[in-house]
């Protein structure tokens, strides 16, 4: 043992000093490096895991919202289609009704027009007749003035009366 100690110069004081060195290194590394780093890393892992969970929840929420959105859009589309179809039906019925009404109005207008035309025609013919009579009377008067003949006068008067 003595030769071992003298060969390697084993010095208990140096062994204690080296032990203290190691204890210092252990404490420094643990309290200044390993512990804070591990704490920070675990916090970061927690944050990342939380973020991933949030992202997963958000993705699920998004998928559900998309589903709801699709459902709402589909319902709205169906509703719009129904409204459109109903509107179309109503419009067609109204159109038919209006057409019928217009047709009736046109018919009425035609009938009234015809009536007016008839009355105008009769009036014009009467007026023409009156005109012709007055012209004939005038012409006969002129003739009688130029040909004072009783027989001719009677004949002409009779003819005029016939008119």
């Amino acid at each position: 043992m003595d030769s071992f100690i003298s060969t390697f110069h084993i010095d208990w004081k140096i062994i204690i000093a080296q032990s203290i060195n190691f204890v210092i290194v252990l404490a420094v590394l643990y309290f200044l490096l390993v512990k804070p780093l591990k704490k920070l890393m675990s916090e970061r892992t927690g944050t990342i895991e939380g973020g991933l969970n949030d992202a997963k929840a958000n993705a699920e929420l998004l998928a559900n919202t998309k589903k709801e959105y699709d459902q709402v859009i589909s319902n709205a589309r169906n509703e719009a289609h129904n409204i459109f179809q109903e509107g179309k039906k109503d419009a067609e019925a109204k159109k038919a009704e209006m057409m019928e009404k217009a047709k009736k109005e046109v018919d009425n207008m035609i009938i009234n027009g015809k009536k007016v035309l008839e009355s105008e025609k009769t009036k014009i013919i009467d007026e023409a007749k009156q005109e012709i009579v007055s012209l004939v009377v005038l012409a006969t008067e002129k003739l009688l003035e130029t040909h004072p003949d009783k027989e001719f006068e009677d004949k002409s008067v009779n003819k005029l009366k016939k008119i």
Partner: protein
Amino acid sequence: MNTEQATTESTLYAESIGHIGSFTITNALLTSWVVVFIIIIIAIVVKTKLKKIPKGIQNIFEILIEGAEGLCDQVTGNRAITNKAFPIVFAIFVFVLLNNWIGILPIGGFGLIQMSEHGKMFIPLFRSGTADINGTLPLAIMSVIGANVFGIISIGVWKTINKYVNLKALGSIFTKIKKDPGILMTAPIMFAVGILELVGEFAKIASLSFRLFGNVFAGEVLLVSMGAIMAYVLPTPFLLLEVFVGLIQAFIFAILTLVYYTISSMDHEEEHDEKEEHSKGELKEAH
């Protein structure tokens, strides 16, 4: 005028470079102090620059710690043991590694010239702390004692003591002799195995300390020898080799410590009992 040239000699022990009272300061101890100083500086720098989003040196240490923990998990097979043993194992690794590397730094020109019985001697200022048995022995002692303390914490005082002084085996002679007379043979053997385990603990200290000391000291001697043959050119490849050896030795020391911690945290009695019950069950099933 004295023109005698100072000679360099590789000694098995660290050379004295000064005294504080009766306390001798060796070049290996000085290197260890430098290592401690460097580690304190690095740790303070990292601590002050810690950010949630890592950058630069923090990144390096995060990768290092994460990788080292993964490696420790492979050895222990249990995250709880890793978490308890990791700070000690990591500290051993860093301390031994820096000691190994600073010892082989090509700054051999810094030193003192002292007079000895062989004339003028050049004493280098830096010698790896692990190239001195006074540096490796305390590490090995702390490693082995720490493993046993860890064992006591993990499995209890009684079971840890029984590993070395197997009183339980001796006691079982009286409790199990009627059921199993063969216990008269096995119990003393178990007790002797316990004593061997105790001797094994001292062997662990010796093997850990001398392996590290031997490898690092041999590396330094090799570098000095190569430098004496052809300075600058010849030592360079060996210097690179020693960098690798330094890393490997630090790794071996740390991993062996972790293995001792893992072994000491296991309850062999429990395992033995489980195996016995299992084999009894198998026998019953066979019948």
